[in-house]
């Protein structure tokens, strides 16, 4: 649990560094910087997926790697890779599809109260 806590925190620190970098060096406003930071982390997760580096990290850090949104990119790219011989698009959401369903239902419910 300690490892997960520290590793999850470390990813948040990396995110903050990226955010500051984008806003200072590229003169981005707050919203843009957040978007670019998220994008960078997601692309990194996808890049680390095929070599099984992401899997090794998860074995080490547990929830520290699963809870950050990067794991979404990992799940989808892993599914696409795994089922590339049977049709990547068909199977891409076979593992991570439930996340989309949950997001849509949750945002629908949220909209009712806003």
């Amino acid at each position, binding site marked *: 649990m300690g490892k997960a806590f520290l590793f999850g925190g470390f990813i948040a620190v990396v995110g903050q560094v990226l955010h500051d970098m984008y806003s200072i060096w590229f003169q981005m406003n707050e919203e843009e910087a957040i978007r670019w930071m998220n994008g960078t982390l997601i692309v990194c997760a996808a890049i680390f997926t095929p070599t099984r580096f992401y*899997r090794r990290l998860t074995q080490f850090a547990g929830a520290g790697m699963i809870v950050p949104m990067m794991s979404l990119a990992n799940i989808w790219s*892993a599914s696409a890779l795994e089922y590339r011989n049977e049709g990547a698009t068909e199977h891409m959401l076979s593992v991570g599809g439930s996340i989309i369903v949950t997001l849509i239902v949750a945002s629908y419910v949220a909209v009712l109260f806003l």
Partner: protein
Amino acid sequence: MKKVGEQTIVFDKNIYIESVGTVVGPKERQGPLGLSFDQSYDDLYCGEQSWELAERRLMKEAITICLAKRKVQTQDVDLFIAGDLLNQTVTANYVASELDLPFLGVFSACSTITEAMLVASTFIDGAFAHRVLVATSSHYGAAERQFRFPTTIGVQKGESASWTVTGGAAALLGTTRSPFRIRAATIGRVIDSGVTDPLDMGRAMAPAAFATIRQHLTDCGLSLEAYDVIVTGDLGKVGSSDLKSLCYETGMNLSERYDDCGVLIYDAEQQAFAGGSGCACCAVVTYSYFLEKMRGKKIKTMLVVATGALFNSTMVKQNQSIPAIAHAIAIEAVT
């Protein structure tokens, strides 16, 4: 052939393991038994497009090596018995389609190899076949994605999980004299101990292994000392200690004469959790490491008890428990 006791067959004829062939993947090659396998691949894909095709190649290669060692042509074999872990045992089916031999597909999860040998020996003993080829295979990638998750997805496994062995193994059984004779076999019963976690298969299978070992000894009227070594297929570290304590409770002390193929095949540094599993696990280790030991006269008799967890991913999703089975084969050295 005669039935002894409740579940055991003692063969009348001298049935020999005439030849064996083993092929493994990269992780098994790097393991402590790496040098004892006939052939290995550096890449998990084995030069193929998918995990499934790679597994097929492993089984085919093992058969080719097995037949070549004894200089036997395919047409000299009467029957081909094989099985694997993939749905509908496709690997065995496709290999059989290329071999052009009468074929019986068997499935008993990771204990497929002992089931195949048991059926083959029975055929030979009854003179229904003279030479039978048995084969099995498993592949880390193919098994992982069929039973668990895509191979690159981030998941965390506990120490009770196992690592599917990538490999193929084949043996030629017949009546031509060789150093290894199959003396008896015990057909296991399916035992459901109520374990529902597919990442804790060792614990699910240990009671089945225990039941088969005890039944075998009772049926044959033997004590544990009759065997130089008792080998289980893929109980792993967790299942092995479970089996030892089950035996200990009934007054049998296994520890001196016990080994588990799943524990032997990987090093502690290889991060294979509790150890190896899969159809190929018991087969490649028995055919290489243990038969070599027997050839070197370090052991004279052994009881191979391959264990299988008879589940599929649909049943696990429906929270059904995992039934398990173990078949035993007694092999002795011929001098």
